[in-house]
Every structure is written in structure tokens, then in C-alpha cells.
């Protein structure tokens, strides 16, 4: 089945997110789609699967124009979307989820077994889907797409939240399905997997189609330049050496909470960047949240610049001592998306002694504008809700709201997850600059290269405890992953 997009255009509130995009998606191939956040990749995927109706242009299947008014229409034409998190009904079993919405509900177990056989997945049919880990929820959604007889699978950043081994398995499956004649659209931020796994790679920028070419003819560097529209610095900035005798700003002793964090002790000095690596579920995020007081610790103590942090004080107490947390998920924990960007940038200035003081709009706006300019937050305007910003700009805003407080200790969890390459490089520079000016930085990331590239030393977590330490320059990704317990 060959699907084609013909001059697709889509605008949201006057902002064009897709402009005249034309793209051929013949069956039996894996098509990679790359671009910055806000380049239009996800909107493209949602147009294909009928979740978004384009303002102009048309979609054709085998040359005939089709009307995709709802996901149901797309499914009828054999086009299915698979999301990052797995859109499943948590209260239903895996089996029920796989056959959700399929018209013929007969011989479900046989067909389920056949699907497992075809994909090589191992899923418990009777398990409650909501209890499954992320990988298996995503697999459930893939099985559902195949159960519907999908012949074009659109995978929207399927590997962003997966550990590397699971990501590799998913790519192998995509190749197998393509070999059977199914078309695959793979949207991804990871250039190496697009170059390895895809037949052709398409670059989108600012809603425009930039290029489509065989993956074999492309290089990561060339792709990066097309994505950004200019040469990009891909190397990590070299952090300033930590001055001798610089004081310990963050110290944790025997920090514990349930099974998630077990007896973590660490020290971060002024000007030092310490990385926190580990597999998914190793306790990185939980450790940062305990340090910040977002969760209550069962035992252990935390000191900021020598002063003890009360266990029951919550984030407010941690902030009062000069801590800041850039959380794992900017949408859930970082920003109030319905409020204007201005208010988000000024949010950390709200707690104070006089809650009834009047906030002057002009001053608030000027302060927010200064922060936004300093970080290069670009978007529809600071008075518009934060959800109108692209992912990279939202992440800049999350950093921005802390910078105004000049934190002594910065905790950053997945600081560049789901942001485009330009924003990523800028955030890395920002972290390095903060450290150079004397902030103690603890940065956790599922990207091993990122922590190795950024940090003076890397602590590797495994099963809620610190399994080892790697100094800068002495460790490779493989060493870290071995310490983390991979293979």
C-alpha cells in the first residue's frame, strides 16, 4: 500500500505548523522523519492517522484521495499511529486492548498468538494493561495496530522513553514488518537509529519539507545541519575544572525511601557537575526528588552548604536553602501550561513573606522578558499560554524560572529529553556556565553520552543504590552501562 501526502498545510491560531508538505510513503519501507521540536513531525503523524484535519492538501492511498476525518477512517484505510507512551485502556486486559475496536471478535486467542508469533513479542494476554511497564504498553499498542490490519504504521518517537536494548528490538521489528510489505513511518530524535534503521530519511524544518533521501547517502552531521538550518556544534562544552578547596554545597548521607532509593550518599562541590547515570528504574529520578524534598525520605540527611534540610519541609524548604529542580517531565511537573509564559517564568518568585503584595504587571513582564531573551525563548509571545511554546522553548522556560533565583544547587533530571538539537546544545552550555559561576550541579539522564559529556564525574546507580563512580575522561558508555547492570 502506498500512501502519499500532497501539499498538506495546517495552522494553529495563525501559526503555521505544516506548510505545503508533500511526501511519498511507499509500502515495504521504513521512512525516518526527523526535525527540531515544533518542526511539524507530530502534526504530520496526526494528520496521517486522522487525529488532526489539515487545512489544505490531501492524503492519497494507492493514488486515490481519501478523507481522514477521524482515526477510525485512517484505520479503515490501514493507517495506524503508535504513540510514545502507548494509548491503552489501563483497566482492560492486554487481550481486550489488542482487539479494542476490531469488528470481528472471534478466535481472539488464536489471533493473539499469531500476532505474538509475527512480532516476536512476549505479552501476558490476561494481565491488566495498566499494570504493565511502558515497553509492554507500547507493544500492546503495536499489536492493536496490526490486529486492525494496519499496513502503514506511524511510530511517533517510539524509542524516546525506552532503554537502548528495547529500542533496538523495536527497530528490528520495524525492519521485519517492512520486509513483509508494511510501510513504517519512524519519527525520532535519535539520528543514529534513523540512519541505521530506515530506508529513507525526511527532514522537516519550521513545518516545511526540507529533503528526503536514502539513509545510506546521509551522515549524522549533514542531517544535523539540515535540521537546524545551520552548522551545529555537537560536541559537549568542556567544563571548567573545579577549583581546589571549593566548598561542598550539596551533601546527602544514607538517603532512603522504600525500595526506590537505598542508602544513597553523595557530595557535590561548588562549580562541580556530577552526573547520575543508570538504567530506567535505577532510582535516578527518585534520588533527585528526595534531595529536593518532593518526596519524603524514610531516613538519611541532606545538607545544603552545611545547613541541614528538614525532612518534612517539602520543596519550599529546599528552595529556601538555594536548591532548584528541573524535573523529568516539563508538562507534568515543570510548567503550568494553561498560564502565560510570563507567569511561569516568575513563579518561583511568588512564595514570600507578604502573599497579599500586589504584583505589578509591567515589572513582571520586563523581568520575564529579560529571562526569556537571555535564554532565547522564542514563541508566540510571552502573554500566550505556555503550551503554545515548542518543547525546546518550554524546557528553556523551565530553566529560566530557576535562573532568576541564582540557585546554589541545581538538580536537573533529563534536562534535554525531547528537545531539538539546538536547544540541547544551548542547555548543555547553560549547565556548564552555571557550574563555572559556582553552582553545584547534579544532572541525571538516561543518555549515557550526555552525562559523560557534561559531568566532572559520573555516579552510576543500580537498584536504588550507587554502584560505582567514573571520573571524567576515564570511562566510556560501555563501562557505565556495565556498572549499571546492563547484560
Amino acid at each position, binding site marked *: 500500500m502506498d500512501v502519499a501526502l500532497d501539499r498538506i498545510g495546517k495552522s494553529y491560531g495563525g501559526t503555521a505548523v505544516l506548510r505545503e508538505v508533500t511526501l511519498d510513503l511507499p509500502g515495504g519501507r521504513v521512512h525516518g522523519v526527523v526535525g527540531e521540536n515544533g518542526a511539524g513531525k507530530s502534526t504530520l503523524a496526526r494528520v496521517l492517522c486522522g487525529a488532526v484535519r489539515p487545512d489544505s492538501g490531501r492524503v492519497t492511498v494507492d493514488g486515490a484521495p481519501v478523507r481522514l476525518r477521524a482515526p477510525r477512517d485512517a484505520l479503515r484505510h490501514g493507517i495506524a499511529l503508535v504513540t510514545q507512551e502507548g494509548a491503552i485502556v489501563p483497566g482492560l486486559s492486554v487481550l481486550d486492548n489488542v482487539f479494542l475496536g476490531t469488528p470481528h471478535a472471534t478466535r481472539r486467542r488464536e489471533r493473539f498468538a499469531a500476532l505474538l508469533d509475527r512480532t516476536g513479542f512476549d505479552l501476558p494476554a490476561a494481565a491488566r494493561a495498566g499494570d504493565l511497564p511502558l515497553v509492554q504498553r507500547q507493544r500492546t499498542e503495536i499489536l492493536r495496530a496490526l490486529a486492525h490490519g494496519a499496513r502503514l504504521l506511524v511510530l511517533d518517537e517510539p524509542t524516546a522513553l525506552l532503554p537502548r536494548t528495547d529500542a533496538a528490538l523495536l527497530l528490528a521489528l520495524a525492519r521485519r514488518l517492512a520486509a513483509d510489505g508494511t510501510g513504517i513511518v519512524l519519527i525520532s530524535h535519535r539520528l543514529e537509529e534513523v540512519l541505521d534503521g530506515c530506508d529513507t530519511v525526511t527532514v522537516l524544518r519550521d513545518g516545511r519539507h526540507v529533503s528526503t533521501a536514502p539513509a545510506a547517502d546521509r551522515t549524522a552531521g549533514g542531517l544535523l545541519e539540515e535540521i537546524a538550518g545551520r552548522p551545529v556544534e555537537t560536541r559537549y562544552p568542556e567544563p571548567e575544572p573545579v577549583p581546589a578547596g571549593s566548598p561542598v554545597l550539596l551533601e546527602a548521607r544514607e538517603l532512603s525511601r522504600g525500595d526506590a532509593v537505598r542508602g544513597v550518599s553523595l557530595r557535590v562541590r561548588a562549580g562541580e557537575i556530577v552526573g547520575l547515570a543508570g538504567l530506567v528504574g535505577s532510582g535516578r529520578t527518585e534520588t533527585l526528588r528526595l534531595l529536593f524534598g518532593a518526596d519524603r525520605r524514610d531516613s538519611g540527611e541532606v545538607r545544603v552548604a552545611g545547613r541541614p534540610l528538614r525532612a518534612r519541609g517539602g520543596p519550599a524548604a529546599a528552595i529556601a536553602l538555594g536548591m532548584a529542580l528541573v*524535573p523529568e517531565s516539563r508538562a*507534568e*511537573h515543570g510548567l503550568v501550561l*494553561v*498560564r502565560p509564559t510570563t507567569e511561569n517564568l516568575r513563579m518561583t518568585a*511568588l512564595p514570600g513573606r507578604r502573599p497579599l503584595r500586589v504584583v505589578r504587571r509591567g515589572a513582571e513582564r520586563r523581568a520575564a522578558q529579560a529571562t526569556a531573551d537571555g535564554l532565547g525563548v522564542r514563541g508566540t509571545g510571552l502573554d500566550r499560554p505556555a503550551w503554545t511554546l515548542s518543547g525546546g522553548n518550554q524546557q528553556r522556560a523551565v530553566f529560566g524560572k530557576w535562573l532568576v533565583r541564582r540557585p546554589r544547587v541545581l538538580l536537573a533530571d533529563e534536562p534535554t529529553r525531547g528537545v531539538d538539537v539546538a536547544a540541547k546544545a544551548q542547555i548543555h552550555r547553560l549547565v556548564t556556565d552555571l557550574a563555572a559561576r559556582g553552582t553545584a550541579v547534579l544532572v541525571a539522564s538516561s543518555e549515557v553520552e550526555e552525562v559523560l559529556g557534561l559531568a566532572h564525574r559520573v555516579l552510576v546507580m543500580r537498584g536504588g543504590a550507587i554502584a560505582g563512580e567514573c571520573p571524567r575522561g576515564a570511562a566510556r558508555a560501555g563501562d557505565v552501562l556495565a556498572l549499571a547492570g546492563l547484560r
Partner: protein
Amino acid sequence: MRTLRDHGVVVALAALVLALSLSTDTFLTKGNLVNLLDQAVVVGLLACGMTLCVVCGVFDLACGAVLAVSAVVAVIVTRSAGVPAGYAAGVATGALMGTATGLAVVLSRVHSFIATLALSIVYRGLAVVITGGAIVYPRAAQLDAFQMIGWPTALGGITAATLVLAGVAAAATVLLSATAFGRSVHAVGGNPEAARLSGIRTGPVRVAVFAASGACAGTAGLVMAARGGSAQPGIGNLLELTAIAAVVLGGTSILGGEGAVWRGMVGVLILTLISNGFNLLGWNPTYKQVIEGLLILSAVTLDQALRRRET
């Protein structure tokens, strides 16, 4: 499109006023307008507090019962300690009960909709316990002074109660739209976890909006008791739902994080105008509730449709 979304409800209010002015001789008379505003006072006061709550992401279904307890307490204290003490006791009772509601919601961690629904039953029961189920009256000699909040003032005959509403609405507007506390209310309503991780203490913010809602309900109870010259445990029954309807009708987001006090006031005026229109036009009041309900539903539907178009 944004202007239409933001101010569509004002257009609707203006259209109603225009329609009633053209179709009746009686609408644009001083007596009717004064009466109209006076009728909007009780729900208006509740809507001020409810707007703070809804923007903060919580519901206060107990405010109608708080109104009743406050009214009863105001009358009983008036009997024993005089009218000024009775007035103060009414407002204070409301604020205290609102604080108690807030503490119960925050400490129990039960969804505010359920927690305040349960508390409203408790508070109604409390009003019955205090009065023994009977109607309470101020002493005959106190009645005139007790009813002074319902009197016309020098300002064109507008009642004192209307001026009280104007004052409360102005204060609530400043509180919600111009203070650091108001910003926190928006943040807690829009995303409580992001607010907490930004150092905002979400518990005290929530307790404070319930306390404010209680104080508004106490004031509303005072107005109702003064108007009727008495109080009984059943007064203000289900008014909390009318207040929520007015708040939502005005365009405050039921999901929290977005809204304004003036929106609630416009919503209250629209509901009052419909009631007033039925009287003036001599329509059968049997259909009033059907129209009101349908209007609320269509207003919220239209609001959502406009929002979707914008996203």
C-alpha cells in the same frame, strides 16, 4: 477569535439587556433595575468565593450550608448581643467554617467535590442542631436595625446589600488578579505539582480560598437573614450549584487555572436577567428552570468550541 471567546459572555449579557429593554416598558425603570441588582446579591457573593475556588482547582459545595449556619448564628447572636455583634458573628462564622472545610479537604486528600458535598450535609445538620429545627427571629425591637443591609442607600436607591456585593467583588478581583497570592491560586489550579515544585505551599493556598469562600457565604447568609427578618436551617438550599453555574457560565474554566471574578458576576447577572425577564414578560415561570439549564449547557458548549478552534 480570542476577543470573541474572552468577551462573548459580555455580548450575551448586552443582548439580553437590549432584548428586555425593547420588549418591555418596565425593564428600564429605576425600580426594576434596583430590584434586579438586589436579587443578584446572594448568588453574586457566593460566586465571588466560588470563582477563587474553581480557579484554584477545587469546588466548594459546602458554601450553601455555610450560608445557612452563618445566617442562624447571626440571628442568635443578634438576640443576645445586638445587631453589630450579630453581623460580625455571621461573617466570622462563615470564614471559620470555610477554613474548617479547607483543612478537611487538604488533610483528608479526598477530592474537594466529594469532601465538600459530605461537609455540606454535616453543616446543614449543624444548623438544625443549633436551632432545634425551628425558625429563629431577632427581637422585635432589633428587627429594623437587623434589616438595614436590605435598605436603599443615597446612591440612587441601590440597596446596601448591592454595595456590599460590589465591594466584595472588587476585593476578590484584586486578590485574584493582582496579588502574589492570586498568582499562586492560578498556578495551583493549573498544575498543582508544578506549583509545589516551584516552592508554592499548595495546602495553605487551598485552605485560604475555602476560607474566602466561607466569608463570602457568611456575608450572603447575613443578607438573606436580614431580608427575611429570620433564619432557618434550610435557607440557601442548593444555591452552591447556582453559584457554580454562574461561574462557569461566565467563562471560568472548570478545569482550574483560568478565570476571573467579573466573569462570575456576568454569569450571575445573566441568570438574574432571565428570571427577571420571565416576570416582566409574564411568561409561565414553570419553564424557567428548563431554559436556565439549557442556557448553561449551550454557553459552556460554545465556550469549548471556541477554545478548540483556537488550539
